[in-house]
């Protein structure tokens, strides 16, 4: 017996309340988790969700973590609308960071003002290249991008590992797998004294605006949506599916690459093995939680950033394991997919 039956048409209301339901369910399941671990539930929530936002420093950290998530998710959302599933943004982030880091290392010692712009361009190109590879594989050999993007992200992390263990290892770094610390002109300037917030947030800010306008007004975006909703209609209209594949993978690679630059020329300040705590994967959840909408993604990005911060706080104050962040991310995605089922379906009414 099926519990669900299809709605006459998808519910617009449900489309936007589903994320709220998912958040509520995550909190509920989270409190059960805290309780079963023997932690005081209310105090745990206080540590996890309130404490990070109770100081201006907390807010600045929230912004730092939200920016890369939002930036990557904007690019991913374009592809997701066309049903082109780039799940390897993590690898594109790493390749962007590598390209930008290469520029920083090569230009070490120069006092040029152009180091940061050159790093931004290199990072965008590095990410775009790592997105272009699956596009080539898809259009040339019909290899599913879902697999190739994921596999390429493992390759990217091994390349990173090779570079920081080998050619780009800091000679004075006590043999740690890391590059030199970048000099000031290879870092984004700090915007707020006493915080780590830097000028890279303007890249994210600009991207949000640009994607918002692109989504609302461009013909290309219309073509992408047609391709996602009705591939046969896209062919019938004469839209090029190859163009959509290339565009969405390159764009999402580029935003991920830019996020990588923001990390290494921002809070991290060098190339090492921890330049991203899984932003590329978390951004997939952010994109869907934000309903693939440019502004929705901003809100979702902050929520995801809060989970990152809360996870760190829970490790410190509650002696919870590192996995707590991943568990909350996973629960959020799980409940989101569950509540999304109610967009097209409703509970069957038993007579």
């Amino acid at each position: 017996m099926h519990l669900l039956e299809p709605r006459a048409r998808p519910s617009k209301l449900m489309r936007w309340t589903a994320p709220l339901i998912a958040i509520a369910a995550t909190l509920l399941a989270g409190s059960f988790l805290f309780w079963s671990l023997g932690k005081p539930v209310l105090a745990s929530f206080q540590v996890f969700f309130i404490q990070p936002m109770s100081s201006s420093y907390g807010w600045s950290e929230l912004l730092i973590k939200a920016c890369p998530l939002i930036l990557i998710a904007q690019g991913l959302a374009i592809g997701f609308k066309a049903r082109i599933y780039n799940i390897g943004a993590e690898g594109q982030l790493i390749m962007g960071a590598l390209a930008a880091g290469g520029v920083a290392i090569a230009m070490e010692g120069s006092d040029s003002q152009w180091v940061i712009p050159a790093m931004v361009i290199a990072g965008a190109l590095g990410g775009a290249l790592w997105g272009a590879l699956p596009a080539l594989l898809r259009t040339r050999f019909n290899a599913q991008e879902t697999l190739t993007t994921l596999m390429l992200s493992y390759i990217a992390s091994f390349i990173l590992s090779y570079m920081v263990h080998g050619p780009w290892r800091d000679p004075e770094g006590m043999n740690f797998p890391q590059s030199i610390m970048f000099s000031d002109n290879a870092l984004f300037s700090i915007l707020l004294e006493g915080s780590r917030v830097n000028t890279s947030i303007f890249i994210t800010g600009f991207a949000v605006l640009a994607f918002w306008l692109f989504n609302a007004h461009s013909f290309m975006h219309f073509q992408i949506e047609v391709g996602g909703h009705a591939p046969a209609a896209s062919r019938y209209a004469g839209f090029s599916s190859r163009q959509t594949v290339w565009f969405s993978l390159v764009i999402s690679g580029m935003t991920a690459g830019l996020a990588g630059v923001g990390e290494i020329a921002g809070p991290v300040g060098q190339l090492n093995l921890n330049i991203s705590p899984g932003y590329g994967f978390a951004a997939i959840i952010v994109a869907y939680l934000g309903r693939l909408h440019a502004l929705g993604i901003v809100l979702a990005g902050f929520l995801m950033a809060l989970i990152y911060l809360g996870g760190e706080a829970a490790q410190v104050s509650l002696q919870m394991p590192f996995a707590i962040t991943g568990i909350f991310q996973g629960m959020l995605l799980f409940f989101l997919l569950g509540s999304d089922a109610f967009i097209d379906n409703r509970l069957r009414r038993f007579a």
Partner: protein
Amino acid sequence: MHPPVPRLELLDITKRYPGIVACSEVSLSVMPGEIHAVLGENGAGKSTLMKIIYGAVRADSGSILLNGHEVNVANPAQARRLGIGMVFQHFSLFETLTVAENISLVLDEPFNLPALAVRVKAVSERYGLPLDPSRMVHSLSVGERQRVEIVRCLLQDPKLLILDEPTSVLTPQAVQKLFETLRQLASEGVSILYISHKLHEIQSLCDGATILRHGKVTGNANPRQETPASLARMMIGRELPVCQAPVYEGDQHTVLTVESLNLVSDDPFGTDLKNISLTVNAGEILGIAGISGNGQAELMAALSGETTVEKHAIHFEGKPVGHLNAGQRRHKGLVFVPEERLGRGAVPPFSLSHNALLTAHRKGMKYWGLVRYSKAREFADKCVARFDVRCGGSGDDARSLSGGNLQKFIVGREIMLKPKAMIVAQPTWGVDVGASAVLRQALLDLSRNGVAIVLISEELEELFEISDRIAVLAQGRLSTAQPRSAISAESVGMKMSGLFDESDASNSAEVSHASA
């Protein structure tokens, strides 16, 4: 003497779906040995009603009486045990299995295949439905597949046989064969429920008829004592509309030429196009008859550019266009109306104005890569008004429109592109009678304004109503087009099967039988 007990009686059957009442207090009764028509337009609730009898759908209220006893049909397997058989409009056969294997799948009792094959052969010969039990289903024509479905039902010795629009896939000759089989079954006492919207078929075959409109019974009649006009009134609430076809007096020239087009289908069960040639002139409608699955989908895709072909295989206005995609061809003035409206001709969750953008974006709706939504809305509003699309407005989603209204919108949209040629596939498939007439008239008017039209259709009446010349597509080959006045429905029907390989014995038998 007791009055005879009806084989099947339905009392006040009601079935609601979200947003629609499919059947509302429908009652009907069928006597043993009666061929009873259920007549109604698409969407009148005929199919839902039959699925309720067959146990595939449960009614919300009402009762079903079989031989005077109330029954509760929980599922199709139980329906079969009760002696109810059904031949669906869309066949449920496995292409990669043989005829006998397909039939074995629905039998409840244990069986062995060789013995079953003998039974299949016996039943099929007894009822004039020649079938080779060892053939694979994918190698069968549509008519033969239908025989498999019918024989499958007959093996279970049904007392009531339901046929859902069985003739929509048959040639006129095959229809006559089917009717003979059905009459033979009826004479042996089998009751038949015959669903159709074709008035002349019902008049020649059925003893009684129940007419449905919008899920309600609007009449019970003996179709032989009615006129097509009186049946139409019960079915659609008014007279059958007639199209006006004036003589074309404009400029004569060839617009579209296809020369020796060969195309291997992408679909493993598709039909390859073999050496197709045709020409269409300004101001005429070229009808392409034939049953779907004989290369219709492939020809449509090749003409539209959804599948690109060899550059010189297709010429438009004297220039080769075979290598161009659908957008590029549309840009030159070659427009298309596909068979599937939702998902191909229109994007289901998009508003009508966004769907206008789909093909009409070249009409000033784009500006530096940005969309001018106000222009798209204007275009859609105009289309809605000019082609009488019944909807709330151009902001309505495409999927919320009825088939006929969406088709009016799509045809209207393509007409408003001011084309030089239009390719249309099954324009009135699933469309109610009123909207069909509007659509046919729109195509006629368009052609008389000097546009060349290719009409690919399964409906012979439609082709004869509005085409100037008619060709037949069968087994991937196209016959030479002949003027409508020089060709009869029978000869078109012959070509539908006559173009098959001579080695195909059952088909040539069918033809010789019909011509005898």
